[in-house]
């Protein structure tokens, strides 16, 4: 039975390479056969915003959209989204706006390992 890795991301899609590290970890884990769940909390929710268009840096939103098609599960905190003015319908296709109680707890329950990426 495949193991499950949980990535708990709390930094945003820009201003640091943390979200890129999360994407690289997710990709590598998927290639190794892990189930991978990414939960965005705080600034980490920005990775699911559709329409990101960085001119000189990796496009995290686009990469996450690609990984979703390869099996990555992505959920971000609804309260954190509302605080930042991001609403349902604005997320990258295949990602979800959810909650700590309904989703992060489920990820923790299902998880074999959890990695926290934060500043």
């Amino acid at each position, binding site marked *: 039975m495949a193991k499950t890795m949980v990535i708990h991301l709390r930094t945003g899609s820009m201003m640091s390479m943390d979200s890129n590290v999360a994407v690289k970890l997710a990709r590598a884990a998927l290639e190794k056969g892990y189930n991978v769940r990414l939960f965005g*909390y*705080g600034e980490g929710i920005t990775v699911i915003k559709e329409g990101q268009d960085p001119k000189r840096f990796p496009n995290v939103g686009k990469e996450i959209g690609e990984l979703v098609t390869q099996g990555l599960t992505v959920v971000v905190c609804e309260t954190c989204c509302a605080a930042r003015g991001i609403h349902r319908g604005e997320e990258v296709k295949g990602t979800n706006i959810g909650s700590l109680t*309904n989703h992060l*707890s489920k990820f*923790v*329950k299902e*998880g*074999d390992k959890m990695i926290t990426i934060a500043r």
Partner: protein
Amino acid sequence: MADSILFVMTKPPYGFEEFFAGARASLAMLASGLIGRSTLLLTGDGTLNAVATQDPSAIKMPSNIEAINDLADFEGEVYCIADDLKSRVGEVEVIEGVKLISWDKAIELVGEHQMITTF
């Protein structure tokens, strides 16, 4: 499959949102009914969140005391490294329910929990 999670709190109160966010995440684990044990461990500057006389009303921030009390309502445990707190503010009263412990006990807590995250 995990049934326990330890939240290691390292950030001081009110200049950051981490403690409140972490306490809420810990509460969500218990409220979900999926995770049997969700524990806060206050270390370093994070021990300042245990000070009983804190009053955030002047700066209109959410109360960390309320966050800790909410956890207690769900039988969440809160531990604080006594030496770290004392080295910052001397002997002070801590919020009711917060247990002052040594680093030896903290290591035991690490061993007792299946998942660990930091805030």
